[in-house]
């Protein structure tokens, strides 16, 4: 099969200006430039089911983004059907967006999903977000950098945020920061180990099985422990990340911080791909 290389823009969200990083992915030469199933009612129905099962967990039932970004805005920001097809087929590197290879996912499966998504896409783009990214960087340096890394700087107990602007919806980041998000990302579940002498080791869980648990403790030591060597291994209910309520972070500060985080598109050194 003849291949051409096409520079496909990665999904972006929130920011009015597109600062998409170009990733090179293979798109077959015979791939239609336009969705052949657009407007086809049966394809839309099938696409809805497939979307709900395979995409809605991260992008939301309304596609406005939960953990993953808002994907109703992609067309008004100038992305083409072929580029979106390629994003679904190949995934987005260094984010949680997986590839969907054939034969498990056929070309038609992808076109159906896009046909459905198109029905939810607005005709015009959402307005630019408020907030000052430079001020937001200051908020980050004061409150977040101890645990979160951007490029070469920052802690490693929490997720690397170098590409968080690509990977997360603004609203999802806001909920996480305010402490109203109830799920933990894999690899960051809070855990407390209690040694036989009663000493406690707090950290986040990197892996586990019936007999052992592997953690990063609050001093960023990565270490595995046998359950039989511990008095208790306790899965904590509250995230290792403190909640930043209104008393710690004003609405204006949060706005600035979110705008800063949205600008993080990973254009500097490539970070680790989210640990797992």
């Amino acid at each position, binding site marked *: 099969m003849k291949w051409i290389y096409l520079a496909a823009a990665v999904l972006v969200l929130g920011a009015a200006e597109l600062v998409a990083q170009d990733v090179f992915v293979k798109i077959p030469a015979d791939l239609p430039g336009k969705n052949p199933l657009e407007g086809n009612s*049966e394809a839309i129905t099938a696409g*809805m089911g497939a979307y709900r099962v395979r995409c809605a967990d991260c992008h939301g039932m309304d596609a406005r983004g939960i953990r993953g970004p808002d994907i109703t805005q992609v067309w008004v920001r100038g992305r083409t059907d072929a580029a979106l097809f390629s994003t679904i087929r190949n995934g987005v590197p260094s984010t949680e967006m997986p590839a969907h290879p054939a034969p498990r996912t056929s070309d038609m*499966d992808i076109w159906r999903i896009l046909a459905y998504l198109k029905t939810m896409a607005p005709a015009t783009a959402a307005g630019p977000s408020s907030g000052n990214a430079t001020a937001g960087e200051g908020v980050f340096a004061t409150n977040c950098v101890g645990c979160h890394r951007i490029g070469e700087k920052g802690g490693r107990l929490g997720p690397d945020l170098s590409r968080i602007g690509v990977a997360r919806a603004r609203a999802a980041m806001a909920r996480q920061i305010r402490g109203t998000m109830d799920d933990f990302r894999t690899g960051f579940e809070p855990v407390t180990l209690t040694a036989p002498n009663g000493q406690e080791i707090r950290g986040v869980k990197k892996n586990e099985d*019936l007999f052992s648990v592997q953690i990063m403790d609050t001093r960023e030591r990565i270490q595995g422990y046998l359950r039989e060597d511990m008095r208790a291994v306790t899965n904590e209910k509250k995230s290792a990340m403190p909640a930043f309520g209104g008393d710690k972070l004003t609405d204006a500060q949060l706005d600035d911080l979110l705008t800063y985080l949205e600008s993080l598109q990973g254009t500097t050194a490539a970070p680790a791909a989210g640990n797992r």
Partner: protein
Amino acid sequence: MFRRSSARLALVALAAAVFAATLAAQNAPPPLVSAQELLDGLKADGSRWLTFGGDYGNHRHSPLTQITPENVNRLVPQWVFQTDTPGRFETTPLLRDNVLYVTGPLNLAWAIDARTGREIWRYKRELPPTGGLTACCGLVNKGFGVLGDRLFMTTLDAHLLALDMKTGNVVWDTTMADYSKGYASTIAPLVVKDKVIVGVAGGEYGIRGFIAAFDARTGKEAWRFYTIPGPGEPGNDTWAGDSWERGGASIWVTGAYDPDLGMVYYGIGNPGPDYHSDSRKGDNLYSDSIVALDTETGKLRWHYQFTPHDLHDWDATQVPILADLTIAGQPRKVVMLANRNGFFYTLDRTNGKLIVGKPFVVTTWAKEIGPDGRPVILPGYVPDEKGQLTCPDVTGATNFWPPSYDPSQRLFLVNAREVCATYYAWKQEYVPGERYTGGAGQRARGPGMRAYGALRALDPTTGERRWEFEYISPSTSGLLSTASGVIFSGDAEGNFLAIDARTGKFLWRFQMGSALHGTSAITYMLDGRQQVLVPAGTTLTAWALSDVPRVPGTR
């Protein structure tokens, strides 16, 4: 002095004689694998493993007793074999005359020296050009069948091959179906007398399933049983319109064989499209059923449908196990199957009548199995565009990983899953070779929705649970049990596990680095030491007790 040295001399002479006799025995070529040998199943001397389930009843229960609950913690690895390819083992290796015969992923197969793990020959069948294969669920294979000096193997492009045991060369190659139309085959053949019985898969791509028998000598087809009846045949009217033509009903796992009754028993796959069923109104026979076929003619002797008009992809691709039990004071010949739909069944294998039908995991779709043998359906059973929460999930209460049966304790052992799902359905047009499911299931998450797995020991006369061993997540490992009361299992995190069959208590573990998936360990004797062979990921690892000496040439 004289006496002692003469005694020593005598000893040396005796040892030499024993060694010579052993050598002679070793050098004598073993007779060809006979139909009788297959009938005999696993022998107490541990000299072989010749069928998918060890015996025709699919017990996966070894008579060997060298490894016990007390000493299992002294197992040490003997060797590791690596495939050096992507893809993983889902195979049950065969053993004869100290040689292992193993199928792997990507149409690969090997003969391997069981003493050292060294390859003797390797077979590879080229896969069709990229994009041509539509094998639903992994480019895997479940193992060889054997008869005479031939091995039988199904291929991903829906062929059946006979290989020469000594060389791996192809003796004959029979096309079973057209892979470009979605047909594939991954099943381990069941050899019965002079016939090789196999089936085809592809139910997610709109095929019409069948079980077929081929002449072991020539590869010529002897009979074919379509798992969906054609026009004019009984049961065709259980499919609306022409939906029978592409209704799926695949064959994924090897059946059981009762030589006295002359029947083979096979679990049948789901109807297609999986979730959206308007196009296939009716019970959809023989999807989600067990069928008993006459081994000589392939004619249907009886059937029992576990899930009439399935909407959840709950195919009956679980390994059927045969046993002779006393139930309510009566001796019964039974076939047992722990089903993906959440119920455990014991049926009379002479006529297919239900004896026991009882949930072995949380089930929300059926209240019970009624006296007529049909499930009593509960509300919320039908998936739709909005989604319906139902237990079990799509992968099911258990699936294609083989259970085992310990007759001495009357324990049916199965790796069960406790997971629920939201099921969606939508209308889908059939396009040949395209995935044809009409919906999907999504694992349910959230507070109170714990998803986990457990090894459960069931009493097949009642369906009651005797004990369980819990995993932190659902396991997809098959099971091997032994007469000494050790069960070998695996968890999804890659631990190879030994569990006490009497109590369900943990005995021993080893982290393999990859989970046992869809298959179990096998066990046999070699040079006086009981071996446990574990297929996990891309490796085979042989284990034996560290403190048992090798006695070359003995069992």
